[in-house]
């Protein structure tokens, strides 16, 4: 074949949706489009180079056929999704440090780019630290639980769609699946607390379980309520329904406040960070994790905080839609701004409140959140039956 020119290999303007193996059905996916074009550039160059050395070889042909393109594009797609989520999380981490500092009458982080590079410096520092593992831990459980805690958090953060063109999987039950993955971490924390052979960790793990049973049920009721109002568990449908009627913060004002605190508990932030209450339990279930493991756990916490805020934005603040405007040119930015606004509220709560006791959180969960979520459900039912929505 006479593919001597590089332009014969790179088909930059090919629509990835015309690819036979396009993985997203008939919905346009922006990050996949980007990664597909990236692969056209990279893979096309590689194929062209190989073809220059071994003209007419099958590898070059295979690199540029539909299946291989989709495969490699998916790998790049994964990286893009992760990096975007990672940067968003780092920004929320930076936000917390800076805003919390201002609220406490201090400056917050000061290293480069208004303190943003402190996140990078911290990452490097934890990476350089010695990775100690205590002698008497159950080593296997110790490792896989923390991997799963981090992994699940990253997974669920990646699964949050940023707009109707920026998603990983467009499930019909997207909300439920995200929530299910979101609720997995406390189990691993419980096991991890046991595996560490440390009393602080054990108590911390137990507290994580205690915490989970107190907020999980009202939270699920609230998710069900939102789905009921929208008539679907699909995130896109929920947001469309909010665009057509009104942001769900209006009919569900009780539920939205309750969900906000339940989400704070879910992401184990102050005032509900009883599993790692540093005043009495040193670092709770994270006590025995050192070096990069601890750094990743910290990062996973912020991933979870980001997810909690994103869920709030999806369920009550109309997601990436703006009332009257709709999608707009870059809905991703609209969505992220809403998410960071919710995160800002979480920072406010953290600056103002103290840590609650484990028995108090059980009380709050079952005696306050639970009735409130049921009242919220009743209101929504009335609205639904009354034909308002």
């Amino acid at each position: 074949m006479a593919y001597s020119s590089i332009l014969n290999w790179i088909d930059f303007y090919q629509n990835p949706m015309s690819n036979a193996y396009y993985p997203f059905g008939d919905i346009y996916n922006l990050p996949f489009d980007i990664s597909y074009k990236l692969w056209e550039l990279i893979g096309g160059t590689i194929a062209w180079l190989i073809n220059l050395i071994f003209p007419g070889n099958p590898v070059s042909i295979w690199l540029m056929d539909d299946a291989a393109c989709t495969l490699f594009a998916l790998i790049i797609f994964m990286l893009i999704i992760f990096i975007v989520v990672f940067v968003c999380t780092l920004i929320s981490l930076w936000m917390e440090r800076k805003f919390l500092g201002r609220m406490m009458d201090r400056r917050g982080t000061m290293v480069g780019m208004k303190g943003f590079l402190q996140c990078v410096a911290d990452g490097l520092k934890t990476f350089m630290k010695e990775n100690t593992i205590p002698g008497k831990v159950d080593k296997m459980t110790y490792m896989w639980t923390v991997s799963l805690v981090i992994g699940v958090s990253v997974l669920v953060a990646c699964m949050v769609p940023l707009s109707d063109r920026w998603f990983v999987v467009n499930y019909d039950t997207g909300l439920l699946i995200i929530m299910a993955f979101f609720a997995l971490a406390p189990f691993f924390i419980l096991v991890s607390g046991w595996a560490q052979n440390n009393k602080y960790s054990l108590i911390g793990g137990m507290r994580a379980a205690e915490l989970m049973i107190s907020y999980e049920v009202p939270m699920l009721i609230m998710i069900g309520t939102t789905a009921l109002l929208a008539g679907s568990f699909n995130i896109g449908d929920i947001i469309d329904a909010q665009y057509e009627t009104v942001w769900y913060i209006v009919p569900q004002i009780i539920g939205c406040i309750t969900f906000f605190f339940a989400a704070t508990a879910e992401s184990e932030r102050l005032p509900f960070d009883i599993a790692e209450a540093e005043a009495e339990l040193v670092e709770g279930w994270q006590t025995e994790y050192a070096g990069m493991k601890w750094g990743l756990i910290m990062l996973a916490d912020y991933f979870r905080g980001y997810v909690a805020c994103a869920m709030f934005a999806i369920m009550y603040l109309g997601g990436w839609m703006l009332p009257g405007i709709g999608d707009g040119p870059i809905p991703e930015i609209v969505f992220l701004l809403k998410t960071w606004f919710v995160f800002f509220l979480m920072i406010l709560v953290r600056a103002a409140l103290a840590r609650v006791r484990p028995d108090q959180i059980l009380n709050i969960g079952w005696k306050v959140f639970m009735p409130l979520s049921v009242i919220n459900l009743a209101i929504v039912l009335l609205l639904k039956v009354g034909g308002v929505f």
Partner: protein
Amino acid sequence: MADSLVPVKEIEEKMETDKMWVIMGPQHPFSHGLWTLKVQIDGEIVTDAEPIVGYLHRGWEKETENRTYPKVIPMADRLCYAASMTYTHLYCMTVEKALGIDIPEKAKYIRIVADEVCRIQSHLMWLAAVGTDLGNLTVFLWAMREREFFLDLNVKLCGARMTTNYPRIGGVRNDVTELFDRDILRTVDRFEKAMWDIIALMDESSIIVSRMKGVSYLTREQVANLGMTGPAMRGCGVDFDIRRDDPYDNYDKIDFEVPVLTEGDSYARYMIRIEEMFQSCDIIRQAVAKVRALGKNAPYRIKTPTKVPAGTSFCRLEDPRGESLMYLVSDGSDKPYRLKVRSPIFVNVSTSKAMCQGCRIADVPAILAQIDMCLGETDR
């Protein structure tokens, strides 16, 4: 199977649950200093507690036997970093009593001012610690910010921030500087306003109040028997303040109130200290007016002999943390024969079992924050 349906209570009785000793300290976020609290817990409930101190035992009392009387003054600063002024004051008072001398009026009022500044900054340090122990860092930083102004006052008074080395046997080291009374009144006025921010953050937050209210209840009899002193004692209904009931220097010529609460819980102890800070502001205003009225040229220090006549003497004083007492045995030489310090925290911390029993482990830091731990004077 119907037989296996044993009543739950019976199962619970048969179940043997282990009680667990949790060692908190010496490297633990809640222990402000080097000390250990062994806590026995049953689930989350504390069933027993045993404090272990002594990591910082320097033999302070023995060391003083090796030094002349004036040389002990800077050492007395090191007893407690947050309340160095009161300890130096106490030491000077004890030696003056052994010498049988009376110091000038002005020195007495200046000491009162210095003591109350010290009390406010020590209480602010405590407030900061309560904030962190409850999990709220904002209180910590705000209280530390307020404390800075009082440390600045220390600088204006004697040039040092914390280990002040200011009182002398027979008076104080130097007269107040020219603008000191203006500065101190400004600081106090400012503080009284700024304090309401912190109170709004603490007392109006139901989480913070519920963390302290009804926790660690002690009766008046228990407190008296355990020998607890200071704000912790007054929060349990004992109406006793050495400044009012056993006045030293010129506290009897100053009009102030002693806050007393009968609730006896952690929150009452917290309230007492907050109120005490406002009372200290009042005392400062009165004492500063008295210092000013005495004029610029009034003597503030008298010469004292270097040798103390043989005999024993003791003095006590209301430290920010409770009753501190010094007992001096002198043998007629220029060095103390024996100097004993009664530190309030040494006794207060020994009550931690009574305070923590029956509470939850999450409350332990919040409870023990109320005794305002300072290891320098505990271990001496």
